[in-house]
């Protein structure tokens, strides 16, 4: 039951020292009932390196106060550090200006912001929005809510059996009523990387703005929003080695300026009387109330950490992981890989003949292996492949080839139990 010899495995050491990287992440040493943890649920949430934890601890120990409010030392320090994080994120995705980065509680929050502040102002009865089959529920439901409220029509780009968007079909969906395209950069369920640059260009030729859900892309590749020319781009901190409760919405300044506020409250105003309230400028217009300051600063530290490794190195190493895993799993009879796009990130969604994903998940857990089983909040994708659920192993740069061997052996054990 050992994995076969493979030329793909040797690439491990040539790129970077994964053991050294692993030592940055305390949780990777954890044992689950005597079994070494093998964490392959990175698409749901990634783990956090110690430098990020330390940064948040330092903030709470020596820098904490509310931001944007008082003249005292701590408030000024906290405000400066919070804004430094915004600046790091601006550089990370090559935005034009800091004020184009809005801190949100995550991707879901950011998409709801756009659906409200852009959608409810500029999209009304008879208008159409284009989404794709590959969307996470968080880029479907906010638009359905808008559709129901305002009589907006949602049109959906289909996929082929490899799990790739049908771009010709996409183009056919445009008409004079099209008001917005919402597309995920990378599918969380099956890993497909969508050709968003081409899609954005086509949409813009029709005068249609584009929102990109980057939750699954930002952890795996270099993002340049100016090169992509997207109108909105969003991702979550907790999938990028940062904490939960924080994410960003990037928006072009001219779009953000013409949108209406999302939540009302402190910080998003410049003056309030009962007769008239004047809203603050961006980004503050969209950051009502006290934000998760420690999380925002931790997010900035995570960005520093990832940048120190370099996203192109991460991308190349993760590709070697998925190539090796795909080769190994293809050697096991009775396995079907769901999603075989030519361009995909290190996500392996699969089914095992005769074994329900939940049983696979529970039995792999017994080996210390954490995978996700279920519909991955992407039921339209499951419907396309006519499966109720899949098992998904999603890899990160801190995973090793040896861990993939453990997974392969684990899957063979599962098959033996159900023989």
């Amino acid at each position, binding site marked *: 039951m050992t994995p076969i010899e493979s030329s793909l495995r040797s690439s491990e050491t040539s790129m970077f020292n994964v053991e050294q990287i692993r030592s940055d992440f305390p949780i990777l040493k954890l044992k689950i009932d005597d079994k070494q943890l093998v964490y392959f649920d990175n698409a749901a949430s990634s783990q956090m390196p110690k430098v990020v934890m330390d940064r948040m601890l330092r903030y709470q120990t020596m820098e904490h106060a509310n931001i944007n409010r008082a003249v005292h030392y701590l408030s000024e320090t906290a405000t400066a550090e919070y804004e430094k994080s915004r600046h790091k994120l601006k550089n990370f995705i090559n935005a034009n200006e800091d004020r184009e980065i809005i801190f949100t509680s995550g991707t879901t929050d950011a998409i709801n912001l756009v659906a409200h502040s852009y959608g409810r102002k500029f999209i009304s009865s008879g208008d159409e929005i284009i989404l794709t089959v590959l969307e996470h529920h968080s880029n479907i439901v906010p638009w359905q809510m808008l559709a129901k409220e305002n009589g907006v029509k949602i049109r959906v780009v289909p996929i082929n059996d490899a799990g790739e968007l049908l771009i010709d079909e996409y183009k056919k969906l445009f008409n004079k009523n099209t008001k917005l395209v919402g597309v995920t950069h990378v599918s969380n369920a099956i890993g497909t990387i969508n050709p968003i640059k081409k899609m954005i260009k086509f949409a813009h030729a029709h005068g249609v703005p584009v929102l990109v859900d980057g939750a699954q892309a930002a952890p795996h590749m270099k993002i340049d929003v100016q090169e992509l020319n997207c109108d909105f781009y969003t991702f979550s901190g907790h999938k990028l080695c940062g904490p939960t409760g924080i994410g960003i919405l990037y928006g072009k300044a001219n779009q953000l300026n013409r949108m209406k506020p999302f939540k009302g409250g402190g910080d998003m105003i410049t003056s309030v009387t009962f007769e008239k309230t004047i809203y603050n400028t961006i980004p503050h217009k969209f950051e009502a109330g006290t934000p998760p300051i420690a999380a925002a600063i931790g997010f900035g530290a995570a960005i520093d950490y990832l940048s120190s490794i370099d996203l192109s190195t991460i991308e190349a190493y993760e590709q070697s992981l998925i190539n090796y895993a795909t080769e190994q799993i293809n050697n096991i009879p009775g396995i079907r890989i769901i999603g075989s796009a030519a361009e995909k990130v290190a996500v392996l969604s699969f089914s095992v003949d005769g074994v*329900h994903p939940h*049983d696979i998940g529970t039995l792999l857990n017994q080996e210390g292996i954490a995978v996700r089983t279920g519909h991955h909040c992407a039921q339209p994708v499951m419907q396309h492949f006519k499966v109720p659920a899949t098992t998904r192993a999603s890899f990160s740069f801190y995973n090793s080839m040896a861990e993939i061997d453990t997974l392969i052996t684990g899957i063979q054990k599962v098959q033996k139990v159900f023989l």
Partner: protein
Amino acid sequence: MITKSLYQEVILDHNRNPRNYGSLDNANRSAEGHNPLCGDHLSIKINLSENLIIDSITFQGESCAICKASASMMTANVKGKTQADAETMIKEFRDMAVGQLEPDDDHHLGRLTVFVGVRDLPTRVKCAILPWHTLHAALNSITTTSTEADDDPMHISIGNAS
């Protein structure tokens, strides 16, 4: 370790060769059960006699091994029992699955105690319970039920299977 004891040979055997699997002609009670969180579904058909005895019972559906084995063993155990006895077992099974009944306590579950391990796996509790849930619905002439329904009399609010 508890998951080791969950996939015991009895459970694997009932999964491989489910008892009372299929449809039932002239059933006078039936229900469909769904777990929307994982897509599992099963249907139960019963022939309940005039003196409220479960004369025959079958199930059909698509689900994980835990759910299928639970359904198979359940049908084998409630066949020939009165509706009232079946309701007692439904309650006992549910209590066991959520940790409110120990295998050593007084109960009528017999070998069904092999499912006790699910109480330590919150995401799997509903897999084991779905058949019982659906049986309860069928006996009470509720034709569809879901592990997530608001008005669900057996609603268990721990964990979810998504």
